[in-house]
C-alpha cells in the first residue's frame, strides 16, 4: 500500500503549493481586471444558452442535460434552444468549442460548463469574460480561481463535497460487514477531483474501523467494463477476504455487481451519483447506498444562474461569496428510503423554481 501512502504525502505537498499559488493568483487577476470594465457591456435581452459537458453516454450527464432543457423550457422556449457542446473527454475540444460559440454569438452567451479537467477552467473563464459572456461552472476548477475575481462574468461555481457523503456510504458499508474484514475500492479516473474526494471519504471512515483493511484501490476510470475486469481480478487476488466494495460511482458499481454475479457471489457494495438504475438496485437491496447529487437541478440551476446574470436579472458581483461558490445538494439513499426517493425524484421529476438559485445549495465551498 505504499502507493496510497505516497498519494497522501503528495496531496499534502500539493496543498502547500496551492497556498503559494493562490497568493500569487491575485496578481494575475488584477491584470485581468484592468481590461474588465472595457468588456462589461449592457445586459443581453436574449443570450444564447449553452451547456458544455463530457458526453452523452453517461446517465449523469443526461440528467444534467435534462435539467438544462427543463430550465430553457421554463423560459417558454423549445428545448432545442439549448446549445450543446460535447467535449468527449477532450479539454482541447472543450476550449475550442467554447471559443467558437463565443465568436458565433458575439459574446451574447450564457454558458454552463464542466470544463472536463480543472486546469482547463481558467482559460475558458478568461475567454468568456474577455468576450463579455457569462459563465457558470460545475465540478472542475482549480482552487486559485474564483468567480469574484471576474466581476459579473464568472457568475458562479458549484461543486459537490464528495468526501462527506462518500464517508457516509463507507460507514454504511463498514457497518454492514460488521466492522471487520477486507474491502476494496474502485475509483474513477485517478486525477479527477471527485475520484480523489470519494476515496478520501472512504479513508476518513476507515479511521474509525481499525479492524477493516483496505485491501486495494484501483482506478476504473468511471467505466463499467473496466470495473468489471478489475473486480474479477480482485476476486482472484483476495477471494473471500473481500467483504465489501466501495465504488466511486454507479457505473463502476454495475460492473462490480456483474463480476460478482458471474461468480454467484453477493457481497455488500456502495456507489455514488444516484442514477435511476442505481436507485432501483438500492431499492432491491443489491446496492447498500448511493448518493444523489441531483444533477437535474444542477444542470438547470447552473444554466439559470448564467442566464439571469446575462440578462441582468441579478448582479453577481453584488452577491456574497457563498452565492458565487457553493456546494450542490447531496442526498444519501439507502434501502429504507429508496422507494420514497424514487417516487419523489425519479418517477415524477419535481418542478423546480429556477430562480431560487441557492435554496437547495449546501453552503460556501471550503478550501483545505
Amino acid at each position, binding site marked *: 500500500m505504499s502507493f496510497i501512502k*505516497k*498519494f497522501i504525502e*503528495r*496531496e499534502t*505537498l*500539493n496543498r502547500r*503549493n*496551492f497556498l*503559494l*499559488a493562490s497568493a*500569487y*493568483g491575485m*496578481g*494575475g487577476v488584477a491584470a485581468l481586471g484592468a481590461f474588465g470594465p472595457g468588456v462589461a457591456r449592457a445586459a443581453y435581452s436574449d443570450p444564447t444558452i449553452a451547456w458544455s459537458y463530457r458526453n*452523452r453516454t453517461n446517465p449523469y450527464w443526461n440528467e444534467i*442535460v435534462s435539467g438544462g432543457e427543463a430550465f430553457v423550457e421554463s423560459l417558454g422556449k423549445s428545448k*432545442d434552444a439549448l*446549445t*450543446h*457542446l*460535447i*467535449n*468527449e*473527454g*477532450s*479539454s*482541447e*475540444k472543450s*476550449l*475550442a*468549442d467554447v*471559443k*467558437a*460559440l463565443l*465568436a*458565433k454569438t*458575439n459574446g451574447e452567451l450564457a454558458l454552463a460548463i464542466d470544463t472536463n*479537467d*480543472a*486546469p*482547463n477552467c*481558467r*482559460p475558458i473563464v478568461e475567454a468568456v469574460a474577455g468576450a463579455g459572456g457569462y459563465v457558470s461552472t460545475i465540478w*472542475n476548477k*482549480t*482552487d*486559485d480561481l474564483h468567480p469574484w475575481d471576474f466581476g459579473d462574468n464568472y457568475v458562479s461555481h458549484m461543486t459537490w463535497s464528495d468526501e462527506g457523503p462518500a464517508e457516509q456510504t463507507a460507514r454504511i458499508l463498514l457497518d454492514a460487514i460488521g466492522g471487520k474484514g477486507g474491502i476494496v475500492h474502485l475509483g474513477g*479516473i*485517478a*486525477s*479527477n*477531483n471527485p475520484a*480523489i474526494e470519494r476515496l478520501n471519504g472512504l479513508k476518513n471512515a476507515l479511521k474509525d474501523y481499525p479492524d477493516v483493511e483496505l485491501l486495494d484501490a484501483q*482506478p476504473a476510470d468511471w467505466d463499467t467494463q473496466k470495473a468489471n475486469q478489475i473486480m474479477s481480478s480482485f476476486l482472484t487476488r483476495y477471494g473471500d477476504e473481500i467483504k465489501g466494495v466501495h465504488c466511486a460511482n454507479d457505473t463502476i458499481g454495475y460492473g462490480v455487481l456483474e463480476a460478482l454475479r458471474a461468480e454467484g457471489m453477493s457481497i455488500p457494495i456502495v456507489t455514488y451519483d444516484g442514477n435511476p438504475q442505481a436507485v432501483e438496485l438500492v431499492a432491491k437491496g443489491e446496492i447498500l447506498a448511493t448518493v444523489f447529487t441531483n444533477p437535474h437541478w444542477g444542470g438547470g440551476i447552473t444554466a439559470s444562474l448564467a442566464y439571469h446574470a446575462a440578462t441582468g436579472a441579478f448582479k453577481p458581483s453584488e452577491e456574497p461569496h457563498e452565492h458565487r461558490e457553493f456546494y450542490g445538494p447531496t442526498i444519501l439513499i439507502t434501502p429504507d428510503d429508496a422507494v420514497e426517493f424514487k417516487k419523489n425524484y425519479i418517477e415524477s421529476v419535481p418542478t423546480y423554481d429556477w430562480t431560487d438559485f441557492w435554496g437547495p445549495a449546501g453552503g460556501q465551498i471550503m478550501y483545505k
Partner: protein
Amino acid sequence: MSFERIKTHLPWITLVLLVAIVGMADANFLRPHNLINMAADIVPLFIMALGMTFAIYIGGIDLSAQSVANMTTVIATVALPVFGVGAALICVVAGLGLGALSGFVTTRLLVPSFVSTLAVGGIAYSAGQYLSGQRALYMNAEMRDASFGWMVGNSFGIPHEIFVGGVLVLAAVFLQNRTTFGRALKAVGAGEPAAVASGINVARVKIMAFALSGMLAAIAGLLFSVKLSGGSPTIANGFLLPAIVAVLVGGTPLTGGVGGVVNTLIGTLIVAVIRSSMLYFEIDATQQQMVFGLVLIAAIALTIDRSKMRIVK
C-alpha cells in the same frame, strides 16, 4: 490533364470550400478575429499533428503522441517552480527520448509502429500518472507568466500561439525540403529498399522521425499546459484521433512518401473548420459525432491523391 494538375491542390481547395460554406451559413464565422482565434486554438493539436506527419510520412504511425503530451503537461507543471524556462527543455528531451524509444523498438526490434508506439504511450501514461500523484496540478500564475508568458500572449491582435505554430511550421518545412534528413525521410517513405541500397542509414532516419514526432507531441503538451496553466495525466486526452485525422485529411496517406508538413497544416485547419461548423449549423448534440464521421469521409475522399498510391489497402 487539367484534373491531374488540380489534384495536388485539392486539400486547400477543400479547406476554402468548407470555410465558404460555413461562412455562407453565418457571416460571423468569416470575421478575421474569429478565424485568427480559431487558428490559435488549434495550435496545440496542430503541433501534435505536425509530429505525427513525420511518422506517417515514413509509412508508420505514432499512437504515443497523446500520452506523451499528457506526460509533458505534468512535467511542465511540476518542473516549472524548480527550473523555470528550463522546464521546457526537460519536456522536449523527455518527448524526444520516448519518441526515439518508439523508433528503436520499431526499427531494431521489428515491432510494427502501431503496437510499439501504443506500448511506449503506455509507458508515458504511467510516467504521467506517477509524476502527478494522479491528480490535476496547476501552475503558479506568476511563475507561468514569467517563464512562458510569451507563449500565450497577444501582439497586434494576433495570439502568440500562432507565432509558435508558425515558427514550427517553417522549421518543419525547412527540415522537410531543404535538409538531407528531409530528403532521406522522403526516400525512406517512398522506397525504403532503394534508400537502403543507396547507403542511407534508414534505421537512424526512422528513429529520428519518431523522435521528432515525440518531441513535437511534447511541445504540444507544453503549450497546452501553459495555455491551461496546469497539467494532468489525462488532460490531453482527445488529441490523438483528431491529430491523425488532420494528417490524413491533409493528404498524407499512410502509404508513405506522399504529402507533408504543409498538407498537415491544411488538414488541421479542415478539422478545426469541420468542428466549429457543428456549432454554426446547430447540429443536434446526439448527431454531432456521426456528422463528423460522414463529413470526414467526404473530406478524405476529396483530398487524397489516389494516383500516387499503387494499391489501396
